[in-house]
């Protein structure tokens, strides 16, 4: 059992009758990472999350959250894991502050602490002036933000968000994602499931792509991009129009460089590993310039579509 993984699943599977909703999913997430689960509806993201929360028992495989099995020791897990379900709801007749207070009490926080936290969190999520309004009057976006406050009140080590931005306007989406980012900065390990690739890319350190119950790819976006779109090649972009012959030769000598190509106003160097440091040295040696070189970045959307065309 590796203690440094906050979330760890091994060959996790869940069958509903004949349907394999989750098929051999292995996730390893270290502290402070933000993992985005991507995939179409019914790909198994939510089911995976439910098993992480101990709401649903795995058919086979194992789950560990902060070292505990959520199905066996749910209380220990739920003390430090915050969860925002896809269709979050609050007690509509209670005010925002009352709803948060209730969650605080269920987490056994002291009344003084709850009072302080509720004020602080309502301000953080931009609902400072709505604290005394009943939640029934809230818009969808406000409820989502209240949901984040609801997750944060227990000061979780792990936060799980199931479709936190579904159905809210772009501004609301931005607010929600910024809040999640704030949490990540405070060393909270975050797991989000989403359809919104662009947003996920902005805040995630890792993504996992789900299809038909399987996690078909998992890792940092740039790595996935290289694997999916460049067959594992690194493309390093030099912001110069042409290469002098001697420099070109020098670069070709670098171990791992596969090709050099002119693309528009830049030179793109392909390699089977990250050669940017050697490259920098070579450029320095021949031109005396410190060039701003860039490793090619990928749009998550391209990667996603590529995987789905293949599967």
């Amino acid at each position, binding site marked *: 059992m590796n203690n440094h993984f906050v979330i760890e699943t091994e060959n996790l599977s869940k069958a509903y009758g004949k349907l394999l909703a989750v098929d051999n999913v292995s996730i390893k997430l270290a502290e402070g990472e933000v993992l985005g689960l991507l995939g179409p509806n019914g790909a198994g993201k939510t089911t995976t999350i439910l098993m992480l929360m101990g709401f649903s028992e795995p058919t086979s495989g194992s789950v560990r959250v902060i070292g505990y099995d959520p199905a066996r020791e749910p209380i220990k897990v739920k003390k430090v894991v915050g969860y925002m379900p896809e269709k979050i709801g609050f007690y509509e007749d209670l005010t925002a502050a009352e709803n948060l207070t209730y*969650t605080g009490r269920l987490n056994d926080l002291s009344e003084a602490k709850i009072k302080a936290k509720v004020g602080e969190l309502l301000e953080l999520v931009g609902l400072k002036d709505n604290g005394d309004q009943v939640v029934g009057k809230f818009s969808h976006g406000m409820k989502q933000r209240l949901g984040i406050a609801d997750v944060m009140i227990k000061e979780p080590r792990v936060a799980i968000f199931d479709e936190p931005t579904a159905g809210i306007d772009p501004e609301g989406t931005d607010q929600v994602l910024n809040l999640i980012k704030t949490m990540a900065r405070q060393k909270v390990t975050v797991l989000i499931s989403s359809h919104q690739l662009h947003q996920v890319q902005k805040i995630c350190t890792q993504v996992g792509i789900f299809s038909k119950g399987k996690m078909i790819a998992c890792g940092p976006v740039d790595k996935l991009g290289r694997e999916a779109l460049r067959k594992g090649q690194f493309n390093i972009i030099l912001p110069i129009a042409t290469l002098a012959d001697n420099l070109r030769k020098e670069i070709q000598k670098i171990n791992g460089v596969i090709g050099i190509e002119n693309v528009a106003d830049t030179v793109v160097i392909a390699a089977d590993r990250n050669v940017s440091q050697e490259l920098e040295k070579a450029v320095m040696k021949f031109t005396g310039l410190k060039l701003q070189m860039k490793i090619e970045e990928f749009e998550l959307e391209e990667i996603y579509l590529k995987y789905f065309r293949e599967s």
Partner: protein
Amino acid sequence: MAGLIEIFRKELVDNFNSRRFLILFVLVYLAGIATVYIAAQNIRSIVNDTTQYVFLNLFIVSGSNIPFSFPLFMSVFIPIIGIALGFDAINSERTSGNLSRLLAQPIYRDNVINGKFCAGLALMAVLIFSVVAIVAGLGLRLIGVPPQAEEILRLFMFILVSILYGAFWMSLAILFSTLFKKTATSALSSVALWMFLFLFTALIANLIAGTVVPINQNSPLEDVTRYDNLFRMISRVSPGTLYTESIQAMLLPLMGNSSPTMMLIGIYSGLNPTPLPLYQSLLLVWPQLVGLVALTAICFAIAYVKFMREEIRAT
């Protein structure tokens, strides 16, 4: 214990704040006041110097032309209160999206259902106790006869049995709230079951008993007794019958045999019944009380198991 007290507290506050219960409270209090007023007006024509337990008569007597006594209205209102307290206990949490959020907190899952049940029970206790207290207090002012110790004890037993009866309907409604996804469905099915038992139990019991032991005005006493026993046995299928028989034994110390028919026969045949002490009355309806407890426990147990084993889905 994790969470039980918090959930209990919140549910209780919610209950007391909701409009639903404001309406129920007003209705029950009004009915209570009406019955005690009618009883106080008619009590003098029934009570004489030899009457024992004058105070209890306040709870039994109805108007000569308005057959509306306190126990009768309790037997109608209590199921409604119980159903109102339980019909949306679980499914409303689910449809509102609160359930998965609630269960993501460090609490034991069964404390959600236990806390709701306890809060409902507490509210019911307050409601029934207070209406009995209002009726007793008003009655005391109207007739000016103080209750004896035995009568107070009997009233307490009456309150307890009434709470138990309410607990049965509440646990049935909670059961429906775990079985049906929509609150409207669970409310309607609870009410439908209650209506069916309320309206048809006597009818069906009469039909069967009358077929097995046909009686008329000239039938010998043995036949009437057999018919009466059979009729009562069949009607005990309904929890309402169990409740009615129990409170009759509590409020009518004279009733040696828990059937009004038999009591009347006894009086007409010249027997002079003496009132039973409380423990004898209790003994008489012990099976009924155990039956009510068992029914409540069974309904709650099924609801509990259903709720505990259910997978919590996001939608």
